[in-house]
């Protein structure tokens, strides 16, 4: 049986959007897929040594809010200082209580399973980021390198 390939582009840098790429990549690796994730723009936040990912209900009417807050709490109130931090803390608590893995844990599992993590060199330069900010064991490359793998992939996802 030929090894299947999964290519993912991760473009988002919030706590909620950190999950799809790492869940899918780690699971695919467990199923025997050769897997790569290419992190570009805000997705680079997912490769930081110290993850500081947050979640915001702003501009996201689909996010379930605690205590039915979305029904009575004014949208503008969500922009108050501290609100994002509070929402993030509540989301993390919820995930922990439901046995959902942390982003750190899923990322570690991806690396253990030889999922190749690639940082977009252009974005690193654009945002004046330093390689020392990122975890070890990742590669730095550009769009052409992504296509070399993605062009042969069985599944290709843009997240």
């Amino acid at each position, binding site marked *: 049986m030929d090894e299947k390939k999964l290519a993912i582009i991760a473009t988002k840098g919030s706590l909620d959007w950190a999950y799809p790429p790492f869940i899918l990549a780690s699971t695919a690796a*467990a199923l*025997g897929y050769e897997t790569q994730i290419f992190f570009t723009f805000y997705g680079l936040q997912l490769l930081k040594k110290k993850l500081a990912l947050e979640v915001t209900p702003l501009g996201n009417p689909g996010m379930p809010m605690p205590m039915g807050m979305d029904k009575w709490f004014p949208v503008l109130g969500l922009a108050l200082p501290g609100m994002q931090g509070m929402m993030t803390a509540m989301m993390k608590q919820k995930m922990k209580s439901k046995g959902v893995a942390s982003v750190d844990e899923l990322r570690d599992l991806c690396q253990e399973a030889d999922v190749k993590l690639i940082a977009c060199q252009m974005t690193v330069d654009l945002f004046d980021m330093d390689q020392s900010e990122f975890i070890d064991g990742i590669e730095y490359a550009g769009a052409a390198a992504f296509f070399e793998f993605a062009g042969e992939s069985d599944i290709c996802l843009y997240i």
Partner: protein
Amino acid sequence: MAEFDQELDASGLNCPLPILRAKKTLNGMDAGQVLHVIATDPGSVKDFDAFSKQTGNELMESKEDGGKFHFMIKKS
């Protein structure tokens, strides 16, 4: 319950952790050995079925007992 060589209790863990832990445990086992996985995630029933089909590790048994799901997986 049939005989098994190793047991993995994935109770309380949610998708995709039961599958990932099972895969990790299977990696350290020999071909033909049987892994018994216990999980509480209802999604794991379909997931272990799909895992078995895609990896070739045979799902010998899949059943629910007292709110827990039990899977017997033979390493290929």
